[in-house]
């Protein structure tokens, strides 16, 4: 077995460290080592977005990042989205609009949608569809997901007034 690396990182705002082999992806580390199973394995090759997380604020597929690359980075996962048990407006909107069926793609869609709204708080439909192109939903719930993102955007805009 190749040498295991000791990696120190910040996950959802809390310092964390773990041991991993170089061949383990960040997704495998999150799920199998740290037991953060919110990020899902779909395609495992960067097509489906079910494993979306933020690394230093940049949205990435965690299946295409090595766990060892997390050294010194800030990682944000779906587990950090609800704060003190209070769902994020996007999570509420996905529930209200039924923006999911089987739910496997949902954590990835939520992470991507949150990253979108932080960059562009009032995206139009085309901008939402473009941004979410790297997230696949095999239950074909895209229209409901788009409506959920629009609803959350509107609610978040209202909160700020």
């Amino acid at each position, binding site marked *: *077995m*190749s*040498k295991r*690396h000791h990696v120190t990182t910040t996950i959802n705002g809390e310092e964390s460290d773990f041991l991993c*082999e*170089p*061949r*383990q*992806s960040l997704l495998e580390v999150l799920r199998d080592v740290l037991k953060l199973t919110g990020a899902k394995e779909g395609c*495992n*090759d*960067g*097509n489906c*977005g079910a494993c*979306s997380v933020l*690394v230093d604020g*940049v*949205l*990435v*597929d965690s*299946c*295409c*990042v*090595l766990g*060892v*690359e997390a050294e010194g980075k800030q990682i944000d996962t779906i587990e950090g989205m609800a704060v003190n048990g209070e769902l994020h407006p996007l999570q509420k909107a996905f529930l209200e609009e039924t923006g999911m069926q089987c739910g496997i793609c949902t954590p990835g869609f939520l992470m*991507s949608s949150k*990253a979108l709204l932080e960059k562009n708080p009032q995206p139009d439909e085309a901008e939402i*569809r*473009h*941004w*979410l*192109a*790297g*997230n696949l939903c095999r239950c074909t719930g895209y229209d409901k997901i788009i409506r959920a993102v629009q609803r959350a955007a509107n609610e978040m805009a209202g909160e700020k007034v």
Partner: protein
Amino acid sequence: MHEFDYVVAENLTEATKLLSDHKGSARILAGGTDLLVIMRNGRRQAKLVIDAKKIPELTDLSLNDEGLSIGAAVTCRQIWENTELAGDYPAIIDSASLIGGIQVQGRATIGGNLCNAAPSADAIPTLIAYGAIAHIQNSDGQRQVPVEEICQAPGQTSLSEDEILVKLTIAKPVAHSGAKFLRFIPRNEMDIAVVNVASMVELDSEGKSFLKARIAMGSVAPTPLFVKAAGDSLAGKEVNDESIKAAALIAREAATPITDMRGTIEHRKQLVEVLTVRTLNAAVARAKGEQS
């Protein structure tokens, strides 16, 4: 994924030494969106993965009077988020904003797109059209190679085992020039090019004649193809449908595509013609300062 060792290279000397010491068994990791996938599916193996993202020269993205310099580890997202590039280098943004989805763009690099040497690579035709130069480091120093001389076969480059791509440079575009990249896919996003084409044009000051043009295309040969004859045919010609159509027919003739699940030979040759016309027209519009 198979077992391998991982090391972060801090500088170019360290990287080239590691590559020399591990001749053929080390791989450079930039974004990993190709490397980790092909290592996982068994198409590539490595005993050592060298993370190049801490090497200062590879992460530098700079724009000055001489032109644009894109470090080999600069991501697609860093390209399209840099609003200063849109004015002089819009076709680089065309490419960077349609490679994969947002997640892939956050990791995938222009340099990696070149070194992965896929026939369908979406950044390479644009780099060729702009006349980009690849700066390659080995233990003896650096050499510079036009991008069109890098790809040798699917997945194979002219870099030797102990060499690393440092950066890509593009000279500052002259006045009255413009470029455009287009890709045809049956979906709206997230697909491999059936055909892609990039065109760069330089016009006279009145915008009536071509002074120079460079056209390159992908998914129509074992490597991205620089169609020098198509661009050269435009030099000195009036900007009109006839001259553009003639260049597109040369490009169509130069394409040697295969029939596969993405398209037939005939379909691809037709697409080359259509996309060459469209990219030339859009490049002309950009050269004239019009929106396109």
